[in-house]
């Protein structure tokens, strides 16, 4: 079962809706098959599009001849990079972090060079799927195949084939004179490293690797797009941000933003992977030529080969400690694979690497390295899980070496309010120690292990972000309400939006119906990512509801012919505080019914840029049983403890924690991109890209520790990303416990575990 460990209420609002578990408003559509996802849209006269992809990991495009494809009956458009503007390099912030518009354009459609197996080189739109597929076969591309490199460490070698001939490493002084595949160096340091290690009585150092893994959303990318002759465009697509899609489509096709309207479909999972565009600009380009709506849907093979995995990494960690377990110094070097274009999450990894711990002396160096693999995309706490795998592994070894309980060593060194985070600022209102304590006191932690089983503990950190959001609240004539946001709902956020509005209005959650609106129907909102929606968009919703309440109070005052200061709002009704008036309370419905008489429709829209998202911490406990003959690792028990601010809808908070833990377990045990010597992905399907199935997992117990975030009206903070940070290390530390030696290279798949056992004798 799932526990909520409640802190004493600090601010004490008596919450009636927040913290309950109502059925989500979009739920019935989703259990009946009505909900329309990206591929479910269909327009009259719609064409079917298909994309031709490079079979080579690295090649120069000598020529592309589309003559035969264009001549095929039923083909209405063929596009290549020549049909897109050749854009200059420009950093642009529309996704989760700044993207280079030129790189994005080249990723959407290769120009001059293909940089990975699966890189798009041309696309067709035709009257049927079979005609479109036939047309792909008629496009003649002449490639000059180049040597390739897919591994991050090999790509850093001075002799490695160069992906971008002019790329000079940033962040190195003086700048290198020769180009390389190293896009950028990140560095972060504090104190005196040498002195710190000199003060250590025990020093543990180890090197770790992780493989590229995919977000693995079950819904492949899909969109329908249409453009008129004057450039006005509509896109229906499944993404984490309709405004992100609008911005990128306008940029990549040279359109006015006002001419692009993006209508969000239901999104079938994203986890960061749908924070950029792949199909939408192509569908628009095809529609521009054909004059008809074009639908593009990726196959699973395309999703794996051409969309965002996260980085494969190589990480070295060295930590020193005194005999009593106090850390004296830490040194981390991490190499992150960016894929075809710069932009791995190495920077975030540098910032999170030691964020859980109080350290006087440290040095962290990060490298962002391009490889002939798909351009990485954000994946849930981008960059953090891999470095946590390494750092938490070394801390586990330190604890073992020193004979200190693994939670105790983390409590001893863990950050608290008032300490300076490794990434700079001073922590305020954090819940790491509370989370550690809850883990230590949880029955799982003291439960006996079966012989041969191992138990691992690991901690994780994520910043969470805020950002720009808009929300509108419209009161209906019967006192019900509509809350409109621009934030796609991936995991049930519509429920929390309705709940927060309902809490302020003083009505039941089912009296407020939430809508995720298109780009023409609500003000700008950043995409759903960075665990920001319930925090930032929730703040906009709350403020909009508060404005509506103010308006309701004013209208009640008008009705009672008193001042607004004499009106209170309680339990969904206006109460008159004016002792001179003997009047009955006015209900929300009564006030709504009189809206026309008291000033017109009652609604409010709030746009804001939310700051001060509080960071979150997680501590996971994992038990494993290992078949020492087959090398198979079974997760026998799993508990995930997390500081969640305040849970608006606890069931969906638990769901985030459980889902994140499950993804991390998959990453630890079996998921990996496997590239052949030819540089092609060998396992671009769910059969051989092994995400956990139901029988692979136990129940995942989610324990919510509530340390309210003072910057949010209800204390909420982001919860979606933290839970994927600890599992890689929690699983690996448990395997370490069961085996008696450490395995530092993910995934811990049966062949590797058995081979390690054989080596260990």
């Amino acid at each position, binding site marked *: 079962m799932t526990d909520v460990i409640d802190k004493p209420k600090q601010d004490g609002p008596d919450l009636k809706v927040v913290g309950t*578990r109502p*059925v*989500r408003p979009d*739920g*019935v*559509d989703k*259990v*009946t*098959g*009505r*909900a329309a*996802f990206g*591929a*479910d849209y*269909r327009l009259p006269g719609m064409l079917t599009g298909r994309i031709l992809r490079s079979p080579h990991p690295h090649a120069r495009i000598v020529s592309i001849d589309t003559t035969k494809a264009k001549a095929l009956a039923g083909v209405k458009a063929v596009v290549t990079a020549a049909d897109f503007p050749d854009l200059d390099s420009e950093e642009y912030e529309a996704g989760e972090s700044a993207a280079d518009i030129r790189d994005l354009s080249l990723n959407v459609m290769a120009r001059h060079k293909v940089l990975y197996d699966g890189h798009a080189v041309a696309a067709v739109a035709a009257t*049927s*799927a*079979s005609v479109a597929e036939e047309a792909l076969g008629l496009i003649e591309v002449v490639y000059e195949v180049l040597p390739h490199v897919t591994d991050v460490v090999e790509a850093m070698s001075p002799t490695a084939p160069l992906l971008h001939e002019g790329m000079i490493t940033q962040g190195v002084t003086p700048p290198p004179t020769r180009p390389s595949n190293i896009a950028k160096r990140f560095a972060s340091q504090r104190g005196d490293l040498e002195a710190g290690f000199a003060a250590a009585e025990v020093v543990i150092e180890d090197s770790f690797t992780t493989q590229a893994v995919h*977000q*693995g*959303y*079950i*819904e*492949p990318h899909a969109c329908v797009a249409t453009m008129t002759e004057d450039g006005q465009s509509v896109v229906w697509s499944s993404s984490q941000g309709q405004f992100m899609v609008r911005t990128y489509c306008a940029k990549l096709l040279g359109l006015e933003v006002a001419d692009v309207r993006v209508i969000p479909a*239901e*999104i*079938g*999972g994203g*986890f960061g992977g749908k924070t950029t565009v792949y199909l939408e600009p192509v569908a628009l380009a095809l529609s521009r030529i054909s004059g008809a709506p074009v639908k593009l*849907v990726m*196959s*699973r093979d395309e999703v794996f080969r051409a969309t965002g995995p996260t980085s494969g990494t190589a990480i070295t960690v060295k930590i020193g400690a005194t005999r009593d377990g106090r850390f004296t110094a830490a040194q981390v070097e991490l190499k992150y694979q960016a894929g075809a274009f710069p932009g791995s999450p190495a920077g975030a990894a540098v910032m999170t690497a030691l964020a859980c711990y109080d350290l006087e002396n440290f040095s962290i160096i990060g490298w962002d390295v391009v490889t002939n693999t798909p351009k990485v995309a954000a994946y849930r706490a981008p960059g953090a899980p891999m470095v946590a795998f390494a750092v938490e592994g070394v801390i586990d070894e330190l604890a073992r070496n020193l004979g200190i309980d693994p939670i105790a060593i983390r409590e001893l060194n863990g950050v608290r309010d008032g300490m300076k985070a490794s990434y700079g600022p001073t922590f305020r209102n954090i819940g790491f120690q509370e989370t550690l304590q809850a883990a230590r006191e949880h029955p799982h932690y003291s439960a006996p292990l079966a012989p041969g089983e191992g138990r691992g503990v690991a901690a994780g950190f994520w910043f969470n972000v805020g950002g720009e959001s808009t929300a509108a609240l419209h009161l209906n004539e019967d006192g019900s309400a509509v809350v409109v946001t621009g934030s796609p709902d*991936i*995991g*049930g956020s519509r429920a929390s939006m309705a709940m927060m509005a309902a809490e302020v209005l003083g009505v039941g959650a089912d009296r407020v119906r939430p809508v995720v609106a298109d780009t023409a129907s609500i003000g700008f909102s950043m995409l759903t990512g960075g665990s920001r929606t319930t925090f930032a968009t929730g703040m906009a919703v709350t403020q909009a509801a508060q404005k509506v309440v103010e308006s309701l109070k004013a209208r009640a005052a008008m009705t009672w012919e008193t001042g607004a200061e004499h009106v209170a709002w309680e339990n969904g009704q206006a109460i008159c505080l004016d002792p001179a008036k003997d009047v009955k309370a006015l209900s929300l419905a009564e006030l709504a019914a009189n809206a026309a008489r008291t000033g017109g429709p009652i609604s409010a829209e709030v746009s804001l840029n939310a700051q001060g998202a509080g960071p979150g911490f997680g501590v996971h406990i994992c038990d494993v049983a290992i078949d020492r003959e087959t090398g198979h690792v079974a997760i026998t028990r799993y508990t995930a403890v997390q500081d969640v601010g305040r849970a608006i*809808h606890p*069931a*969906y908070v*638990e*769901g*985030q924690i*459980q*889902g*994140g*833990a*499950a*993804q991390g377990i998959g990453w630890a045990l079996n998921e990996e991109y496997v590239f052949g010597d030819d540089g092609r992905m060998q396992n671009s*399907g*769910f*059969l051989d890209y092994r*995400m*956990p*199935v*139901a*029988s*692979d*997992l136990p*129940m*995942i117990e*989610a324990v919510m520790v509530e340390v309210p975030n003072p910057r949010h009206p209800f204390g909420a903070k982001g919860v979606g990303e933290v839970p994927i940070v600890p599992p890689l290390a929690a699983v690996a530390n448990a395997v370490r416990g069961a085996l008696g030696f450490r395995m530092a290279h993910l995934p811990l798949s049966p062949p590797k575990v058995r081979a390690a056992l054989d080596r260990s004798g």
Partner: protein
Amino acid sequence: MSKVHIRARVNGDPVEFLAEQGMTLLDALRDELGLTGAKEGCGSGDCGACSIMVDERLVCSCLMLAPEAEGRRIETIEGMARDGGLHPLQRKFLEHAALQCGFCTPGLLVAAKALLDQNPDPTETETRFWLAGNLCRCTGYDKVIRAVMDAAAELRQAHSA
């Protein structure tokens, strides 16, 4: 290539449609019949998002050709709620928050119903193995399994009452 004329019964109703001979039943349901509840997550039978019942057997509609549906009785997610009310499984999925994005949900529900139709009292392990053909990336399966077990309990109670 001429299309074939197919007659079948879908969610109790007779249907007729034309399909290319190599078209999957999934594409036919979605594109010819407008039943988009079954989803394509992989096209290779590995994710189960396209699960439907054919002659009371649970299958992946992406691994069946449309012409194979000739004369068959097909049940899809669109037919699960009856007489204006949700099936207990659908209700339990909502009560337990057993869905996040909801993309795999139709397939999971069809598969879970097939389980309970033939095994009204499955263990957790039996439920997990039966549903192993339905990938969910959002939930970690915890709430899905709880919802199915809870629905099974409710259905057993309803039957014994």
